[in-house]
């Protein structure tokens, strides 16, 4: 593992701030064409989760990287829905994402402490990383749910995201965005910038799928806007990822082109 270019604090700050700002603009403005901002916020939250996974899994947790991504969204879904429901119950929709985030941080810290103190996994960064991962999980779920529903109102989210079943792709693709980058890049020559560029492109794929879901729930034009923006983010980051793979492969990389004509 090489020296990180971005510190954990920088990534967390960006993830939380951009995530919340995106969710709030998309959720409070009520303009369907701004729904994509929640998706962009969720992409930054995905990156925050992917970096935390990278730090904790480099210790070797013994169960495979996917387990921690599923744990993130398992904790995230409970906290996110609770936050949004509290906002609805007290007629203050805008407190929803903040309550969800705070609760997720608490659950993450408790689960991290249980892992270290009771199960005795003894990974020094476990508490901090599980706290970050739970926070990322809640922001990813809230962000993509708000993007698909076009609102922060819990009743609208139940109607448009949960009852329709769109929560399932958001859940599993959101988890993939957090767990897949490190799972795909791990190894002695893993570099932080390559892993994080990969997390942007995974997040963009989730955003594009969320855009497809929102065709039926909000507005076709807003949905196409989300899909086009997500596709652009994906293209830029995936090309960047390919470049970094070539850079890290060093002299071992030889371009071979496509399959030779006889092999097709």
């Amino acid at each position, binding site marked *: 593992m090489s020296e990180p270019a971005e510190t954990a604090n920088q990534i967390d700050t960006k993830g939380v701030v951009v995530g919340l700002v995106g969710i709030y603009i998309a959720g409070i403005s009520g303009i369907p064409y701004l729904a994509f901002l929640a998706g962009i916020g969720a992409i930054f939250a995905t990156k925050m989760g992917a970096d935390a996974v990278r730090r904790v899994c480099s210790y070797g*947790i*013994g*169960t*495979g990287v*996917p*387990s*921690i991504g*599923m*744990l993130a*969204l*398992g*904790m*995230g*879904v*409970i*906290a996110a*829905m*609770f936050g949004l*429901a*509290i906002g*609805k*119950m*007290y*007629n203050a929709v805008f407190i929803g994402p903040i309550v969800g985030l705070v*609760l997720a941080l608490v*659950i993450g810290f*408790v*689960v991290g402490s*249980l*892992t270290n103190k*009771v*199960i*005795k*996994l003894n990974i020094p960064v476990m508490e901090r990383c599980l706290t970050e991962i739970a926070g990322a999980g809640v922001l990813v779920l809230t962000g993509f749910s708000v993007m698909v529903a076009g609102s922060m109102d*819990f*009743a609208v989210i*139940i*109607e448009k995201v*949960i*009852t329709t*079943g769109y*929560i399932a792709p958001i*859940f599993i693709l959101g988890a993939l965005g957090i767990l897949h980058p490190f799972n795909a890049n791990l190894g002695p020559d893993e570099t932080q910038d390559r892993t994080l560029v990969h997390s942007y492109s995974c997040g963009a794929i989730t955003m594009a799928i969320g855009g497809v879901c929102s065709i039926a729930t909000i507005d076709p034009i807003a949905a196409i806007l989300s899909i086009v923006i997500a596709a652009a983010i994906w293209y830029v980051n995936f090309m960047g990822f390919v470049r970094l793979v070539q850079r890290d492969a060093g002299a071992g990389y030889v371009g071979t082109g496509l399959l030779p004509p006889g092999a097709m």
Partner: protein
Amino acid sequence: MIDIITMLATHWISIIGIVIGGICIAVGVHFVPVGGAPAAMAQATGIGTGTVQLAAGSGLTGLLAAGYMYKTLSAAGAVGISEVILICATGAVGAMIMITTTMIVGNWVYIYGVGVPPASAKVEYDPITKNSQAPYVAPGTVGQGMPTVCFVSGTIGGLLGGLGGSLVYCMLMWVNGDPAISSIFAIGVFLVNAVLPSYNIQGTIEGFHDPKFKRVPKAIVACFIASLLCGIIAVMIPGTAMFGGI
């Protein structure tokens, strides 16, 4: 406005149900023979994938069966304790079918595809069939495939996992009456309670005959606290009906 304290006071029995369900899931994970990547290369006993994938697979199959049973029973009348027992039994059978199918097909692949006899390196003799294991373990490996004891253990694991998942689902249905919210929450509680024990067993376990099985009490303590936290939060979330419906 719905008062949080009132909801907690009304639904305390659901919190207990969620905690019991969470502990069932945690213990169930220890019974499933998980081999991880070495098992996928027929170099370790167990199913060749991670704990979470197996637990989630069997749990979700159980949840699907339980959800269908709940729909059928609730159409006939109110869901009481006896109905909950029926729903949990359905969920347990659903999860057992999934896990046994995975194990039998996995064994076919190991026996006829890879060409190895199922054997465990953790015990000298299979505790159930009393067959000798050591001569069948390939040199340099820690067993292959699913011998009888692992198969039986995995089936018990499916039973406990499906039971726990269905119990959590039923308890949440009592609280909010909304199948969509209840199922996504049950999945959340299920994943938390499946991942914590998987850290406890450090990724691989053969079943109840494995020395690692003695670590169960630690997982029960951890999952008790985690499920209690999840349960308290989950029962405070009302369903759509409480917002006056849509």
